[in-house]
């Protein structure tokens, strides 16, 4: 591979008419493409000199076949010059800064020097339109200048004062071109134009290059009809108009007709270059679809740069819907047999694997079931000829295989693949998994790896890529396998861990003390890797019992010691520790859960205290094993009792409903009382607020308190026996606020943090009196989701809900664009061996990575050594 070279500079210039004619191999004069026999017309748009796309024909210019000929440019001689839309800005500037008579820049040498700088010190600015005063007199020839008007897309005109009236006098491209020709070379340099490569008159086209056929190939539809490329269509238009223009000109047509044709030619050339110019209706296909012309090919997401050069479609990849499977390891991915049969890994045949690969080749392309050994789809001979393995030739090909061949073997269990879900926002969005071939049509994954991918199973699709070389597979396993990515570099904690049912299940299993018979204990642990039960925790009536904490301890590493507070901890002023009545004080000594409930704080994604501790003491692999065991145990734990949530779980008793009504009635009265005070003019405004604002704040506060109170009343009735409460307390899903809204009272709906005020004159809806400031007239919903909303409440709820939707829609698009710009700026930076962060050119960005050279995944919350953790594991008590 040649060593990379540094680019010194890039020069930009214009193609001169001379250059266009020189590079052209053929003058194009006919608008037709192919004759009736399907053969290209000579001097037509598909002329054989421009290159060939039909197989079998040879290029008349280079005598090569369709696959080898790169294509050659032709040209069209335009009847009259037209403006190149890409340069209208430059043309406007030049017309405004140069003299209409002598072509010199409208500034004296001293004035130029003031802007640009002296001969030696050229550090100043380039001349701009602003440096030249409008309608001044030329300092070189004394000509009075006229105002130049520019109308999008391509019209220029001079403003002439006639009889005290301003009259616009149109400039034709020919006029402009002759003015450009008059500008002397020396005057172009202070304008930022290098006259050697870009004379200004070249921005006005007199001859148009015709791109090679190879970049606008025609396609043959199923019905045998030819369909031409958009560019060819546009060129046909240009040639037709050009032809008509010439004929009219030669026949001496009236000026009016000539001008119309000139404008039409200008329109076609403009849309040929850019079909999205402001002030110009886009040229359309017969079907009404706008044509994709030159600029559209390059621009935007699917353009040449972002679509074909920065990003491409790849082979050896597949995509399908994902679904969960808690019995898989987090490091595995379930691959459908149909996918595994299609995707291959090339294996070099050696004397050591000859027999094995012959066996694989004999199985062929159709693996009968997931447990059968994998087959192969292709065998490649040493001369790189591919032999497709098919039902008929399996034996023959397999017998031919010998060392030096390559067999493209199908995927099988244990192969390394990359797994990805878009948007790929962080490095955990692509991780390496081990294949497990399965029946069905979906990719299967352990729900514990959903958080890093941000995946759920409501129809999400994911991509899989198969590394093709030994190096790629090694790199994938060592750097990006799932167990290497349990810790997120964002906050240094585990991002893979229990979600939803794992957390509920663990909470139900480990909360308080329960005793299991041998049968139950083995049922819970049977899918984990443990081999024997510990001595029973208690023996009653000759029956052995194991406690729930003992069962959980089986999946912990033997020496693990840690003490922490569970998610269900209430943060009491003085912690009762061992005597905690919520069993939220977790103490694990020597791999034994002595007390406490295992919930989100212990095993959840983003928290995962235990997972974190295992990684620090036993490494990533042991942590992955723990997560596997934990998911299996928790699913068994939740299945032991069963877990469900229904509408009647939100039911309260008569007393609670009475209390809630009372609270809401009092709140409404309180609001009314405050409004009364306000209307009487007695309300004392808070510092820095108006009286109205003070009232609004008071009302919001009163109603907010009322809602919280209903929540407390509901919470009193619903204990841990309620599924929603259990989920909220364990941290699995939802919060007590959600429960309040379901069972108690939904509360105030707001737009931009204020009560709903918009609507009709002085009222939100026609259901209320004008000027009503009461709670229900401004979006307070006193019912619960269970109880049901009345029509006005429902409408207010829709208003509040809409705001949330708009917010998320705006936020995602904004942050997406921000992320794109940031990644473009950071993409090639790396940490060099000396600890500096450098760009590809070796330029230093940071002298020490992150100023402290620390990898967040390897540090303990910013500190190099986890002192607290070490002391705790030695003393075996909380510090």
């Amino acid at each position, binding site marked *: 591979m040649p060593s990379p070279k540094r680019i010194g500079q890039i020069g930009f210039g214009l193609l001169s008419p001379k250059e266009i004619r020189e590079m052209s191999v053929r003058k194009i004069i006919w608008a037709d493409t192919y004759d009736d026999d399907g053969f290209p017309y000579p001097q037509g748009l598909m002329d054989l000199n421009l290159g060939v796309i039909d197989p079998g024909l040879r290029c008349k210019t280079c005598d090569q076949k369709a696959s080898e000929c790169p294509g050659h440019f032709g040209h069209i001689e335009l009847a009259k010059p037209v403006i190149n839309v890409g340069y209208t800005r430059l043309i406007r500037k030049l017309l405004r800064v140069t003299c209409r008579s002598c072509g010199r820049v409208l500034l004296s040498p001293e004035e130029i020097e003031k802007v640009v700088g002296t001969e030696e010190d050229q*550090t*100043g*600015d380039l001349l701009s339109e602003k440096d030249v005063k409008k309608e001044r007199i030329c300092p070189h020839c004394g000509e009075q200048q006229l105002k130049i008007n520019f109308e999008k897309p391509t019209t220029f005109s001079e403003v002439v004062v006639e009889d005290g009236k301003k009259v616009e006098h149109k400039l034709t491209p020919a006029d402009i071109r002759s003015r450009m020709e008059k500008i002397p070379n020396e005057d172009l340099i202070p304008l930022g134009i290098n006259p050697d490569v870009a004379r200004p008159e070249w921005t006005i086209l007199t001859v148009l290059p015709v791109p090679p056929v190879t970049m606008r190939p025609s396609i043959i539809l199923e019905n045998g009809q030819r369909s031409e490329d958009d560019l060819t269509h546009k060129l046909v238009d240009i040639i037709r108009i050009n032809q008509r223009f010439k004929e009219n000109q030669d026949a001496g047509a009236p000026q009016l007709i000539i001008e119309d044709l000139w404008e039409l030619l200008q329109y076609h050339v403009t849309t040929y270059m850019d079909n999205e110019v402001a002030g110009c209706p886009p040229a359309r296909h017969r079907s009404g679809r706008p044509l994709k012309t030159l600029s559209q090919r390059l621009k935007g997401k699917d353009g040449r740069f972002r679509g074909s050069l920065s990003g491409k479609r790849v082979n050896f990849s597949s995509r399908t819907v994902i679904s969960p499977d808690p019995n898989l390891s987090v490091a595995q991915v379930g691959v459908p047999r149909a996918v595994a049969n299609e995707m291959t890994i090339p294996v070099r045949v050696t004397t050591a694997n000859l027999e094995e690969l012959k066996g694989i080749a004999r199985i062929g392309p159709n693996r009968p079931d997931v447990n059968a050994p994998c087959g192969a789809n292709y065998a490649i001979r040493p001369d790189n000829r591919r032999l497709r393995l098919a039902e008929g030739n399996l034996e023959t090909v397999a017998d031919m295989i010998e060392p030096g061949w390559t067999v493209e073997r199908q995927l099988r269990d244990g192969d390394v693949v990359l797994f990805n879900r878009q948007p790929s926002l962080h490095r955990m969005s692509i991780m390496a998994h081990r294949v497990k071939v399965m029946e069905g049509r979906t990719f299967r994954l352990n729900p514990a790896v959903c958080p890093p991918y941000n995946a759920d199973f409501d129809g999400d699709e994911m991509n899989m890529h198969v590394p093709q070389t030994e190096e790629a597979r090694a790199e994938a396993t060592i750097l990006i396998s799932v167990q290497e990515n349990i810790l997120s570099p964002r906050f240094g904690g585990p991002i893979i861990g229990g979600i939803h049912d794992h957390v509920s299940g663990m909470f139900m299993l480990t909360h308080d003390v329960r005793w299991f018979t041998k049968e139950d204990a083995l049922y819970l642990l049977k899918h984990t890797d443990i081999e024997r039960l510990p001595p029973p925790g208690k023996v009653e009536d000759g029956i052995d019992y194991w406690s729930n904490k003992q069962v959980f301890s089986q999946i912990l590493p033997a020496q693990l010691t840690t003490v922490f507070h569970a998610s269900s901890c209430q943060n009491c002023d003085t912690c009762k520790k061992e005597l905690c009545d919520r069993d939220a004080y977790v103490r694990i000594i020597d791999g034994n859960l002595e007390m406490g409930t295992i919930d989100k704080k212990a095993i959840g994604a983003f928290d995962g205290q235990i997972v974190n501790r295992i990684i620090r003491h036993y490494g990533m692999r042991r942590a992955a094993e723990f997560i596997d065991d934990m998911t299996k145990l928790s699913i068994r734990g939740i299945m032991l009792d069963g877990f469900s949530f229904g509408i009647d779980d939100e039911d309260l008793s008569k007393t609670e409903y009475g209390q809630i009504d009372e609270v809401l009635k009092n709140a409404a009265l309180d609001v009314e009382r405050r409004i009364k005070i306000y209307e009487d003019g007695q309300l004392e405004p808070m510092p820095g607020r108006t009286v109205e604002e003070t009232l609004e704040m008071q009302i919001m506060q009163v109603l907010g308190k009322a809602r919280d109170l209903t929540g407390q009343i509901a919470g009193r009735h619903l204990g841990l026996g309620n599924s929603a409460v259990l989920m909220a307390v364990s941290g699995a899903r939802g919060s007590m606020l959600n429960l309040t809204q379901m069972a108690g009272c939904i509360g105030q709906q707001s737009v931009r943090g204020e009560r709903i005020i918009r609507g009709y004159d002085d009222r939100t809806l026609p259901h209320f009196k004008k000027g009503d400031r009461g709670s229900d007239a401004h979006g307070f919903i006193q019912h619960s989701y269970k109880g049901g909303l009345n029509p006005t409440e429902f409408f207010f709820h829709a208003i509040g809900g809409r705001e949330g939707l708009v917010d998320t829609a705006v936020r995602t698009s904004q942050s997406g664009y921000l992320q794109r710009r940031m990644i473009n700026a950071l993409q090639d930076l790396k940490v060099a061996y*000396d600890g*500096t962060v450098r760009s590809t*050119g*070796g*330029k*230093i*960005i940071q*002298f*020490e990575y*992150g*100023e*402290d*050279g*620390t990898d967040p995944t390897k540090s303990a919350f*910013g500190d190099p050594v986890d002192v607290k953790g070490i002391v705790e594991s030695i003393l075996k008590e909380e510090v």
Partner: protein
Amino acid sequence: MSTKLNVLEHVMVPDHKIMSDEEVTELLTRYNISTDQLPKVYHDDPAVKSIGASADDVIRIIRTSHTAGRAEAYRLVIKRPKK
């Protein structure tokens, strides 16, 4: 009379110092770089102006850091290009 603010005295402005030629040579050999691979700072940057540095000087900036406590950075003074 207006009193001119010296930005260097502001609490949030870190310590700027012009480096001597020997220090610069040492710096360049330590990181095995040429001056144009250093981060840049414009000559009209208020802090640069007030320590009197001019183009092609290298300045050392010592600032307090959230992560490291104290961090050193080096910047090459360059002329601000006009637009």
